[in-house]
């Protein structure tokens, strides 16, 4: 219980720290997304139900802080489109739904649960790689959702460079966070158990 609270506190602190992390202009403004990495490492360290709580908190705060506010004047936008003769062009509102990150983090967190046995044994190679793939997958999903909503396929070259750099930065920090959570677990006497998707047959 105490460990779960500690992970939640680390996650909330990471949102504050995120504001201090600079972007890398030469890598298309790639940066370390610290709360996302904290969530993914936390997802490997905590139970399934706690992972869902973390996914909800991370997704909610991420969208609240970083998703641009929805336009208050959709009717005006429609008028604008019609004014330019674009009413039949299938142009969408182009805005991502608030809360989609919660869903994405829930799915990625469930995948991270699969590496709990390795995390328990202190083997970090695969969990760190999983963090990289998860960050890449999260960014790609966001981009594909935007592409789907906005209705035209556009994959600029820099997008791939940015996503790869973001993922590498996440992989660079992930071992430190894994070690932090390992130390916290030991300190707070938290036992990392893996229940997985075992089926319990109760005889009926």
């Amino acid at each position, binding site marked *: 219980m105490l460990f779960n609270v500690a992970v939640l506190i680390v996650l909330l602190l990471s949102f504050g720290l995120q*504001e201090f992390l600079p972007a890398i202009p030469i890598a298309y403004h790639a940066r370390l997304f610290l709360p996302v990495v904290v969530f993914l490492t936390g997802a490997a360290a905590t139970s399934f139900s706690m992972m*869902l709580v973390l996914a909800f908190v991370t997704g909610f705060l991420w969208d609240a802080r970083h998703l641009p506010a929805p336009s208050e004047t959709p009717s*005006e936008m429609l008028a604008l489109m019609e004014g330019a003769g674009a009413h039949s062009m299938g142009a969408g509102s*182009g805005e991502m739904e608030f809360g989609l990150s919660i869903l994405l983090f829930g799915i990625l967190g469930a995948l991270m649960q699969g590496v709990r046995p390795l995390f328990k044994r202190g083997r970090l190679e695969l969990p760190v790689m999983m963090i990289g793939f998860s960050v890449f997958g999260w960014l790609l999903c966001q981009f594909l959702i*935007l592409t789907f909503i*906005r209705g035209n396929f556009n994959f600029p070259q820099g997008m791939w460079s940015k996503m790869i750099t973001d993922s590498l930065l996440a992989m660079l920090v992930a071992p430190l966070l894994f070690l932090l959570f390992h130390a916290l677990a030991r300190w707070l006497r938290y036992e990392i158990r893996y229940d997985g998707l075992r089926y319990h047959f109760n005889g009926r």
Partner: protein
Amino acid sequence: MRKLNILAVMLFVASLAAVFMLNTPTTRRIQQRVLAVFAPFIHSSAAVADAVEAVSTPGMDPVELAERNEQMRMEIQRLRIIAQKYNQLVDENAQLRKVLDFKGSSPFKMTAARVIKRSASTWWNTLLIDKGSLDGIGTDSPVITEQGLVGKTGKLAPHMAEVILLTDEMCRVSAKVEGTLEQGILSGERAGLDTVPNLHLRFLSRDAPINPGANVYSSGEGGVFPANLLLGRVVKFQNRDISGEALVKPAVDFSALDHVFVIEMQVIEP
């Protein structure tokens, strides 16, 4: 799966559905509160970045500073004279409009704001300024510099606002091309990753007589942006399947923004 996990999944799905069903004003309120909570972190990070920059950049020569100060004073005096003339003309214009009972475009109030930092989002081009709802700024207000249109305001905190840049695909402006009757919609590129991202002016007529170098201005349609704000210059025009499209270089240098002005449209009582 354990019963607790099944219950957790059900609760997660129910909470997710509740979040998806939030309406726009509620979403905005949540975003504004969260931005207000993070405001101290954002201000501190900007102060740290400024301090690091001040240490890393060499100090200016005092003589040079004094010269620049003098130039600035003269510039202020010149602008004050222009502002006086402008106010006289605005009053005169308002009186003449009243005489003619003319329902024209509204004048607008400008609030100066300092750019705090670029936001740390994934695919959106936004920045934060140091004026917010308590400074009289509203949402979806145009943001300009002396070079042209920068974007529009989004989320607001009491003394902070997020600006969605013109280079973002989400910020769409109804635009017209100088010297033609052509109107279209100007928007940025998805993710806008380049240092100087180009803008796309879409839904123009095919074979429209648009030459490179022509200025592109806001048309004022849609009600968000006032008319005649400079947006950029045409780089090239090309025909698409059913309409024409012009590639536009933004008028504003988005990498060197220090101060901006937020426009508040004022409604004239008839």
